[in-house]
C-alpha cells in the first residue's frame, strides 16, 4: 500500500503561471516532508522541505504547504519557468519512529511541463 501518493502523473502549465503539485500521505507518523526534482538521466535533487510543526515553508519561487489534518501537502511554483520542467517527487519520513530514522518514502512523481 502506497504511503505517499502523487495522484497526478503529469501537469502542464504556461510559463509565468502558477504550478501546483499535490501529494497525499497515509502514515500519521510522518513528521518531515520533502520535494525532490529530477531531470532525465540525473539523480533527484533536493528542492524544499517542511517539518510537521509548520504549515508553510517558502524559498524563492517555491512554497510548500502542509495540511496535517488532511494528510496533504502541495508544492507551489510561481512564476513557473521552462527550466522547471522536470519530474517532482514528494517524500516523507518518520524521523522519530522505529529503526530507520533516515529512510524517505517517495511518491511516484509528477512530470511538470512548463510551456513557453
Amino acid at each position, binding site marked *: 500500500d502506497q504511503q505517499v501518493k502523487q495522484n497526478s502523473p503529469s501537469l502542464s502549465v504556461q510559463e509565468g503561471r502558477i504550478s501546483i503539485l499535490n501529494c497525499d500521505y497515509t502514515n500519521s507518523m510522518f513528521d518531515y516532508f520533502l520535494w525532490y526534482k529530477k531531470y532525465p538521466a540525473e539523480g533527484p535533487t533536493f528542492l524544499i*522541505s517542511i517539518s510537521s510543526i509548520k504549515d508553510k515553508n517558502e524559498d524563492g519561487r517555491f512554497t510548500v504547504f502542509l495540511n496535517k489534518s488532511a494528510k496533504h501537502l502541495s508544492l507551489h511554483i510561481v512564476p513557473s519557468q521552462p527550466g522547471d520542467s522536470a519530474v517532482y517527487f514528494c517524500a516523507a519520513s518518520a524521523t522519530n519512529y522505529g529503526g*530507520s*530514522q*533516515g529512510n*524517505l518514502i517517495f511518491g511516484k512523481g509528477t512530470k511538470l511541463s512548463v510551456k513557453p
Partner: protein
Amino acid sequence: GAGVSQSPSNKVTEKGKDVELRCDPISGHTALYWYRQSLGQGLEFLIYFQGNSAPDKSGLPSDRFSAERTGGSVSTLTIQRTQQEDSAVYLCASSLQGRLSTNEKLFFGSGTQLSVL
C-alpha cells in the same frame, strides 16, 4: 568526493547473470541508501546503511539482492541471477548522519540504468 558517484552509469546484462553496482558516497557521510526506480514507478527504497551495518533491509525485493558496505564508504549492490523485472534505474544516496531534518539532506547519485535482456 564532491558528490555521490555511481558506476557503471549503464549496464546491460543477460537474464540469469549476476551484476554488481557500485556507490561512492559523499566523503564523511555515514548514512547510505539504495533506491530503485522502475519504469513509471516512484523511488522504491531497498536498503539503508549506517556505517557498515544495515539496520533496514526491508526493501530488498528477494534474496537475489544483497548489499554490503566496507570502510564506512563504498557500497556494492549485488543482484544474482538477474531477471527482466530487475530492469530499473538503481539510485544511491547518502546523508551526513542519517537523521534527515531541515539541517541534513539526502544527496543522490545519477544512478545506474540496469537493463536485463
